[in-house]
């Protein structure tokens, strides 16, 4: 039987027309008989075409960058660019010195966002998301608000070395909870497990942004092969889930848990079938399912499920609730390019077009909101430079919870 490697090699020769005439005829006959092989040839052909097209696009992008930088398009010329640069710098410097990182007032801005039913929410102060004692950090690649008080996030790679995506980063992005198993005592029917219980935080809101392959690349670069099922990625990008918690950045952490602790994607099913509920409620449901598994298993398997229980309990304790949507937020904002500040007027026009349908006030509010995010991002970058490396350790934020499980009969 042919190995996969030989198969690929032969397909490659066929596509490059490097097979001799008899070989080509034989190969085509095999293709006729084998639909799988035919599909493989088709896919490989598309891939090679995709690579070529990608190269052409890179060439076109280079021309674009040279000929039509944003400032040129705006018709400003170098003087205009200089003026705008000065203006933007002034704005940034002003915001920098008037926006202490621990002051939530900096975050205040009118969010032009929509709730789950697509209704606009205007005039909501962003400081209500985190409370006044929260610090906020902006992810380099996707300016999503992250709560510094959230130990799960502190432990994730989002906070670490995102200046250099391809460089070393933490091997493990999962949050692994701690637990203690008490020694069994003779005659005792149950064994106690001490599990860290997290203090529930007040209900939080998520900002829903489109999940892009960039997020996955960033988050799962090293673990993609092992963990990330491509079908799952495709599911999340489905329109069906566009305005649900499944399309949120927070949901990525649930995916990790589902991949780790699912039995044939059953946990993911719970999330997809309970979309009308709030995310933390579904987290609790999933935690209970995993706890049931712990009850029904022994040894290493039990420990595994206990970890799962603790993981989802932790997620539930964060009480992620209502989702706000920013339907017109496109990749411009995801790139974290500070120079976009100069394009404010143009972007406001975009948001107020028929395509987005926001009012001028809403569009301006939304823009201010993202502009503030960039300021925070820069503050964070600065912090990395000055402190060399920011270490965020898991903090003891919880108390012990005792879960009684049946004694294993062994």
């Amino acid at each position, binding site marked *: 039987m042919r190995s996969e490697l030989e198969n690929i090699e032969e397909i490659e020769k066929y596509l490059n027309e490097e097979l001799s005439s008899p070989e080509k005829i034989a190969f085509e006959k095999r293709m006729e008989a084998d639909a799988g092989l035919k599909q*493989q040839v088709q896919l490989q052909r*598309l891939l090679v075409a995709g690579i*070529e097209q990608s190269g052409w696009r890179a060439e076109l992008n280079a021309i674009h960058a040279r000929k*039509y930088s944003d400032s040129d398009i705006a018709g400003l010329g170098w003087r205009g660019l200089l003026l705008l640069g000065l203006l933007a710098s002034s704005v940034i410097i002003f915001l920098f010195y008037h926006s202490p990182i621990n002051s939530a007032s900096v975050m205040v801005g009118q969010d032009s966002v929509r709730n789950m039913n697509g209704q606009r929410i205007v005039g909501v102060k962003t400081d209500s998301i985190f409370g006044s004692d929260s610090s906020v950090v902006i992810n380099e690649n996707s300016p999503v608000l992250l709560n510094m008080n959230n130990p799960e996030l502190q432990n994730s790679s989002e906070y670490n070395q995102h200046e250099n995506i391809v460089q070393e980063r933490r091997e493990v992005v999962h949050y692994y909870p701690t637990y203690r198993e008490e020694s069994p005592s003779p005659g005792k029917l149950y064994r106690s497990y001490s599990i860290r219980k997290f203090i529930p935080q007040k209900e939080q809101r998520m900002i829903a942004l489109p999940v892009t392959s960039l997020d996955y690349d960033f988050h799962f670069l090293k673990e993609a092969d092992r963990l990330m099922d491509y079908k799952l990625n*495709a599911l999340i990008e489905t329109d069906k889930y566009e305005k649900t918690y499944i399309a949120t950045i927070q949901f990525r952490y649930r995916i990790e848990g589902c991949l780790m602790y699912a039995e044939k994607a059953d946990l993911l099913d719970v999330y997809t079938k309970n979309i009308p509920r709030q995310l933390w409620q579904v987290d609790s449901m999933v935690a209970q399912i995993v706890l049931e598994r712990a009850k029904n298993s022994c040894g290493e398997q039990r420990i595994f499920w206990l970890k799962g229980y603790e993981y989802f309990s932790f997620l539930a304790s964060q009480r992620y609730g209502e989702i706000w949507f920013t339907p017109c937020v496109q990749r411009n904002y995801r790139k974290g390019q500070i120079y976009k500040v100069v394009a404010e007027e143009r972007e406001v026009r975009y948001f107020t077009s028929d395509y987005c349908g926001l009012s001028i006030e809403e569009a301006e509010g939304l823009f201010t909101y993202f502009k503030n995010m960039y300021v925070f991002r820069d503050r964070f970058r600065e912090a990395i430079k000055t402190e060399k490396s920011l270490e965020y350790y898991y903090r003891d934020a919880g108390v012990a919870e005792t879960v009684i499980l049946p004694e294993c009969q062994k």
Partner: protein
Amino acid sequence: MKEDAVILLIRSGNRSDAFEKVYEYFPMIRKMILTAGGNEDDARDMFQDSVIVFYKLALKEDFILSSSISTFLYSIARNLWLKKIRDYHNHYKPVAEIAESTEITEDSEEEFDSVKTAEEVLNSLGEPCRKLLSLFYYEKKSMVEIAQLLGYSGDKTAKAQKYKCIERARKMLGDKLEHLKKIFA
């Protein structure tokens, strides 16, 4: 005639020069996309997609350009933009009169979409794989050169890595195409 000159450049392998000349039409396409509710990025994407369609067709010996390049690009860009809007927002209303004629048939449109999907898959592969495949298939480097450039111990390792990347990309592409087929069925 300028049209002939551009096609000649393409067929003689001077792709960069051809792209450079064709890029003069970008402001026109940009204006159209912005008027239709797109943004700068959309304008750039639509224009580049149109150029790629044009480039692929121009490479074919039997291709005869029946209009000016600008009209051709305009027509393709508009159709691509309307298709994008249609796919993602079913309620889109055209803002201007839409020409009935189109230079791309449904078959080639499907092919174009598939190749774009392949591009997306390649982008989600991760830098090492993307770089390796690009060096081999686009820059036509040998395995020995690739091994040196990417720091592999030898050409055999690079080759093995290349096959792994292709296999993974093929699986991802297969899944994604199947998934899209289901969505748009």
